[in-house]
């Protein structure tokens, strides 16, 4: 196993605070007040359907948003540093060193013209100034801990010679080769074969644990997240609608959307039958209501839900949610 991260300074939390983003041509913000806290060394799952803004929230922290995105308000802070106000150079210095990232599609993420070894060691050589031979050893070790078979061969090969699962392992090794404090993984197993998903996810979690990284795992699969993260946040139409410890969310969800997701997901145990589904579909950015964006699909919705933005109900250690209807429940 890999050596643990040498702790030089106390690692700070990565905090999204009321982040709001807009795209030109849309009147509503695409991210409408995203608040997340990724604690150092802990795991956080970000759950949402496609289009809910979970990828944008991730990219915003990395400074890799599309150039047209407009920052309307809010911050992403690492300690006292507001990542969104850093200049390009300062932000670049964080990437790979403090923030690592793994994305969805491993088949297109690696450079087809360069060997795995070259791409993997580039940050070590070019930014940390580690000589080639030594950088190669570090890469080998990272590949080994990510359980790549024949890591020496993998270093010499080009991406098309690897399988999808191997590519994603390489990308995980590559994102963590400089031992960042946080790893942001955006749907890291969604594009993979079902058979390899579990193994790759395991590698990701293990690597995060070994290096003591804070891990943000983005997914649309509530049970996948349920099995591997400590904290969870549920996103709907650009907002966080519920968050808290995974256990609480799975056992006593408070937001009707979280409840719908849990009910709609298939399970192996229990009687079979038609799965209850959430009627309707998520609204497009400009179809979102001023109040609760989930109101049109919600069986509990009151007439006021469509107009009044639901306040955040805090449950203390148990997180919180944004629904005035279920707030009154015991």
């Amino acid at each position, binding site marked *: 196993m890999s050596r643990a991260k040498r702790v030089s300074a106390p690692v700070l939390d990565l905090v999204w605070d009321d982040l709001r983003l807009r795209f030109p041509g849309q009147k509503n913000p695409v991210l409408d007040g995203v608040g997340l806290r990724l604690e150092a060394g802990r795991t956080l799952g970000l759950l949402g359907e496609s289009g809910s803004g979970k990828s944008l929230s991730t990219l915003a922290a*990395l400074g*890799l948003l*599309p*150039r047209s995105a407009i920052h309307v308000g809010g911050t992403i802070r690492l300690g006292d540093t507001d990542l969104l106000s850093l200049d*390009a150079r300062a932000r*670049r*210095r*964080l*990437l*790979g*060193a403090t923030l*690592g*990232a793994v*994305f969805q*599609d491993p088949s*297109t*993420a*690696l*450079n*087809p*013209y*360069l060997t795995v070894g070259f*791409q993997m060691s*580039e*940050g070590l050589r*070019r*930014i940390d100034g580690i000589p080639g031979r030594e950088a190669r050893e570090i890469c080998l070790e990272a590949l080994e801990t990510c359980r790549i078979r024949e890591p020496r061969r993998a270093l010499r*090969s*080009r*991406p*098309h*010679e690897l399988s999808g699962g191997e590519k994603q392992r390489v*990308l995980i090794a*590559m*994102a963590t080769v400089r031992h960042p404090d946080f790893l942001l993984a955006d749907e890291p197993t969604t594009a993979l074969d079902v058979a390899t998903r579990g193994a790759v996810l395991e590698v990701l979690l293990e690597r995060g644990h070994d290096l003591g990284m804070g891990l943000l795992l983005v997914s649309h699969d509530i049970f996948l997240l349920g099995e591997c993260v400590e904290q969870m946040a549920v996103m709907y139409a650009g907002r966080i609608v519920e968050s808290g410890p995974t256990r609480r969310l799975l056992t006593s969800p408070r937001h009707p959307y979280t409840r719908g997701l849990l009910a709609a997901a298939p399970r192996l145990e229990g009687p079979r039958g038609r799965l209850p589904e959430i009627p309707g579909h998520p609204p497009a950015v400009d179809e979102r209501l001023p109040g609760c964006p989930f109101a049109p699909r919600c069986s509990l919705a009151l007439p006021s839900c469509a107009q009044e933005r639901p306040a955040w109900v805090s449950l203390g250690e148990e997180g919180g949610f944004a629904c005035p209807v279920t707030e009154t429940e015991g």
Partner: protein
Amino acid sequence: MLTRLLLGVLTLLAILVASFFLQRIAPGGPFDLERDMPEAARQALIREWGLDRPVPEQLGLYLKGLCRFPPDLKRSMVQPDYTVWEIVGPRLQVSASLGFAALCIALVLGIPLGVLAAVHDGKMADRVTMLVALTGVAVPAFVLGPLLKWIFALELGWLPESRWVGPANMVLPAFTLAALPLATAARLVRSEMGTILRGDVVRTARSQGLSERRVVFVHALPGALVPVIPWLGPATASLVTGSVVVERIFDIPGLGTTFIDGAFNRDYTLVMGTVIVYSILLILMNLLTDGLLVLLDPRARSARS
């Protein structure tokens, strides 16, 4: 590769047959221009060249000559003191150096311009570059050539206005000829580079914290050059047609001029010789770009090693 080579030979044959017949369909013949030639002498020449026989038979005889080694391109019908090769050879040298210079200018300036435009997508540098490129596509050589000549030769006197005696004579025609392929190369690279810069490979490279220069030149550029390679074939074709015009404008004794003069004079053998040289050039260029593409494809590359 062997199939492609065979296909190239077939293409060449098809071009030869087509141009042979097209020439004979065009009114007039090689000996019509000399008005004071006695009718009997004219008939004797026609018989001597075999022009009184059926066209397919003429074609057969011509192709038979080509199959010899070295291929027999015959003598020029209008200048019978020279073989076609004696006329075409030196002129090919002139045209080839002009075309090669133009292609180099197009690539050396066009590719960086495309990169510059893609990196500054939508900003001033992009707009200016693409305006220049659009101008390069839109302004024909017969406008650009005289314009450059007027400014740099006649007004400023920096460069010779025409003829072909030294390297300085090459500058204006080469740039005139390069304008169109330069613009095309810039647009090709800009478009591909733009796609790559918005793509996953660059996102990964950026997420590593690499400098923007490294992202652009190490991670994005190789992919952006790929569409330039298959384009080299058609680009050569456009250089060939362009050179016909440019050689006229700058009074250059090249193959283009030979081709036009040959066609005007109905110098059947000279035109056929020129057609053969042009066709072989284009077919070879296309074969070469196909080969290059295979060579650069990472899949094919590792299959060999």
